[in-house]
């Protein structure tokens, strides 16, 4: 038992439901007590989804506990088959079914004989997997199931497409900017003359899974989910796959190089494309060289999030913007080794935890100039008065923007550059603040005291004071007066002003 207030990754069934509801015409039936269908609320609210979420619960109540769920589960599957005629019904276990230890696989098999749709039992254990692991596994399970079935029926598409083509694996509902990322990736592929064979599972169709092997290679955009499926396809169908996430200029370049190798093309040169995009389409490379970005040099940042986004972000900050990453962390404990390997050379320390208080303590200790994290880090930042850019799930409705906001590809690099730049205090403003010793915060009304205490100020110093930009003037004045008071100085001269500033800098 452990005391918990908050968690980064959800329970396993959320992952399974995300896979199911990403596909078209797949219905998930949760084996769960009343109230566990909160997933439907999240999907409907966060994604502002117009369609009913294809998830229902086969409710476990007292009666079911007494009698066993068999009859009810089978009945619910038959009923859903009649009502909506889905291509696949995915029986989804929850923490409750993990304890009941009923033979849900058997229920699924029984129901399968009585309905037109395919019926599959999602093989995920609540106590051993989180949302992300369950997502990875369920996706692989559905793909494997469909392909084996197609193999048996002889409907498997074995011939490769004429033009080079790829499958994009691992786009999910409720994913962090997944829709935008997918669009950006498709645009890049179109530029390169590569066709997209299938995008799975978002918007995908179970019946079209038999066409997966037609693609020349698979792309897995996020480490969290899709790799298991890619590995299966590699093993059984000899399909190569690319797993570098094209987030940031360097990673996008690596991604494209890997893709070029995997596709084994002789005709198109990716290098020219990369070059052109990097120099002209993405503004990020130029931005990093521009004078503004100089001000970010050596600033301290903390990065925390899922493995994919946190690792990519560390590289972008450290290698593409010259920012010092004081700590890089992830809550994907199951993928800790990969994460360490990715970031070890680009940050001072690494934190692997799913306990948000540890993250909070780390941020408090480091006092970075900016945080790049999840919604939780945003709240930690608010409390500590440190700005935060959200780069990873868990998310809330603000992270489902209506406008086009990819994190991947060349447009993604622009978006990220904006995000980073806007998160840090603006360069020039920051510069001024530093010169004059701090931020002019909340207590604006104190500014009126400027007039009252003018007696202390020499004419020259008063004139000097007026030269200071309005928004920091009050702060400078207060700091100087405080300094004068502490040091028993009767008249504030220009010299005293600078002494005060020097003093402030040494603190």
């Amino acid at each position: 038992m452990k005391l918990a207030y908050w968690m980064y990754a959800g329970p396993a069934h959320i992952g399974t439901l995300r896979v199911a509801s990403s596909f078209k015409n797949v219905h998930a039936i949760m084996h769960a007590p009343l109230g566990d269908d909160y997933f439907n609320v999240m999907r409907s609210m966060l994604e502002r989804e117009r369609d009913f979420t294809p998830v229902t619960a086969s409710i476990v109540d007292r009666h079911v506990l007494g009698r066993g769920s068999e009859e009810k589960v089978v009945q619910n599957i038959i009923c859903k088959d009649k009502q909506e005629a889905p291509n696949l019904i995915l029986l989804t276990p929850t923490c409750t079914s993990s304890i009941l230890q009923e033979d849900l696989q058997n229920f699924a098999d029984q129901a399968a004989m009585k309905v037109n749709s395919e019926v599959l039992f999602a093989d995920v254990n609540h106590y051993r997997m989180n949302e992300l692991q369950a997502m990875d596994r369920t996706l692989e399970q559905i793909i494997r199931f469909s392909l084996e079935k197609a193999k048996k029926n002889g409907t498997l598409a074995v011939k490769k497409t004429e033009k080079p083509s790829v499958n994009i694996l691992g786009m999910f509902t409720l994913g962090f900017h997944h829709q935008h990322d997918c669009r950006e990736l498709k645009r890049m592929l179109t530029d390169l003359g590569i066709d997209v064979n299938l995008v799975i599972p978002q918007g995908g169709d179970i019946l079209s899974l038999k066409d997966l092997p037609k693609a020349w290679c698979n792309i897995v955009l996020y480490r969290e989910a899709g790799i298991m499926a890619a590995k299966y396809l590699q093993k059984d169908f000899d399909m190569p796959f690319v797993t570098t996430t094209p987030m940031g200029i360097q990673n996008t370049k690596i991604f494209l190089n890997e893709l070029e190798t995997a596709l084994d093309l002789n005709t198109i040169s990716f290098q020219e494309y990369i070059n052109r995009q990097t120099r002209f389409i993405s503004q990020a490379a130029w931005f990093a060289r521009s004078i503004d970005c100089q001000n970010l040099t050596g600033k301290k940042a903390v990065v925390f999030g899922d493995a994919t986004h946190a690792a990519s972000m560390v590289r972008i900050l450290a290698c593409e913007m010259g920012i010092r990453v004081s700590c890089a962390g992830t809550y994907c404990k199951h993928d800790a080794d990969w994460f360490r390997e990715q970031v070890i050379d680009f940050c001072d320390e690494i934190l692997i935890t799913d306990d948000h208080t540890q993250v909070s303590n780390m941020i408090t200790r480091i006092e970075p100039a900016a945080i790049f994290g999840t919604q939780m880090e945003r709240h930690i930042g608010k409390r500590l008065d440190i700005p935060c850019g959200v780069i990873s799930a868990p998310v809330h409705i603000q992270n489902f923007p209506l406008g086009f906001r990819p994190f991947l590809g060349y447009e993604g690099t622009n978006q990220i550059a904006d995000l980073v730049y806007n998160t840090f205090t603006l360069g020039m403003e920051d510069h001024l603040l530093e010169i004059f010793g701090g931020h002019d915060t909340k207590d604006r009304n104190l500014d009126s005291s400027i007039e009252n205490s003018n007696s202390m100020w020499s004419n020259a110093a008063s004139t000097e004071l007026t030269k200071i930009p309005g928004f920091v003037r009050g702060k400078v004045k207060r700091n100087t007066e405080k300094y004068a008071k502490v040091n028993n100085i009767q008249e504030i001269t220009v010299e005293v002003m600078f002494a005060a500033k020097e003093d402030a800098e040494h603190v």
Partner: protein
Amino acid sequence: MKELEFECETGNYHTFCPISCVSWLYQKIENSFFLVIGTKTCGYFLQNALGVMIFAEPRYAMAELEEGDISAQLNGYDELKKLCLEIKKDRNPSVMVWIGTCTTEIIKMDLEGMAPRLEAEINIPIVVARANGLDYAFTQGEDTVLAAMVQRCPSTSISSSNSSSNCISNDLVLFGSVPGPVATQLDLELKKQGISVKGWLPSQSYSELPDLGEGVYVCGVNPFLSRTAATLMRKRKCELINAPFPIGPDGTRAWIECICSALGIEAKGLKEREEKFWNNIEDYCKLIRGKSIFFMGDNLLEVSLARFLIACGMIVYEIGIPYLDRRFQFSELKLLEETCNKKGVPIPRIVEKPDNYNQIQRIRELQPDLTITGMAHANPLEARGMNTKWSVEFTFAQIHGFLGARNILELVTRPQRRNASLASSGASSGSEDNLVLNL
């Protein structure tokens, strides 16, 4: 005279898990700490459903069960003790409420047995409530907590002094968690009739729980408190005043009248008072008169709200409700029947344990002007040209008493008022075909 008819469907409907009651109860009961003993599923629900509050150092947490707890490799008592000591050290609450969940039910964790032992050891009262999704829906969570608190209320020593008519009114205890200002408002309303309320369950703090015992009259303010009512009657020998609930001017008046009559007091000035508040909300009533409404049902407030809205001039097609205790809601159901007959509108069908799928078919057929529903269905229905209002808002808004009526109508009329302002922009919800084609 037409009479009420009841139906029961499959129970495949969407609602909140009853553990959600911690979110309002921890705020209501000062210095309490709610420990939900469950799994990640429970925690995920709490953190998402109550998102914003989670960051204000809430006085509730999960005792997250791990595989070792389930397989009984770990000793439940020792584990809970460890966590409770941690909570005691960090927060030092005056009462701890353990919320049992589906998991503790299934693995048969004996929370009721462990609590008294641990209570003696750590010296903080521990109240156990089984607010799980196997047995209850949403607001019924509060019912389980209050029913458990009933046992903790001090006993009154019954004296014969109650026989004098002046004092009898002092033995009224109201039950149901409402925000402080609402409680004050209802107290004042009764004071106008010469009744002073002896106490509330729950009280503002655990140490102020009201005295209970034989001869104490109790009356509920919310329709989902049937267990609490039963416990008050059976375990503490209290006298339950069965009344409609103080929702809407009609309900509030009937509620006060029932209390007065039970206490042998003649109610005065209520007719005028009710009329005054009807006038007060006439601007809103004008908007909804003759419009139809459909309650999908998820929080047990449905019958009272429907009754009030029928009195406002609306036509209710269906009252979905998770669970209907016909004895506890007896007076409310009677008032519903009377209101329908008085207004000359058909009596709505009351559907217990509804089936959301079937309901959506009915909604498509009936095309009500407004559907009161959970968030899982709200956006999809809006996309199909139906107006919806999110039902959970009624649980959190101040809807009780004469003053609450306006808040209810503020919510009920909002979709209509929103549509009026969108009408000219071409963004108003179109027909179903329209939107489906656009997808």
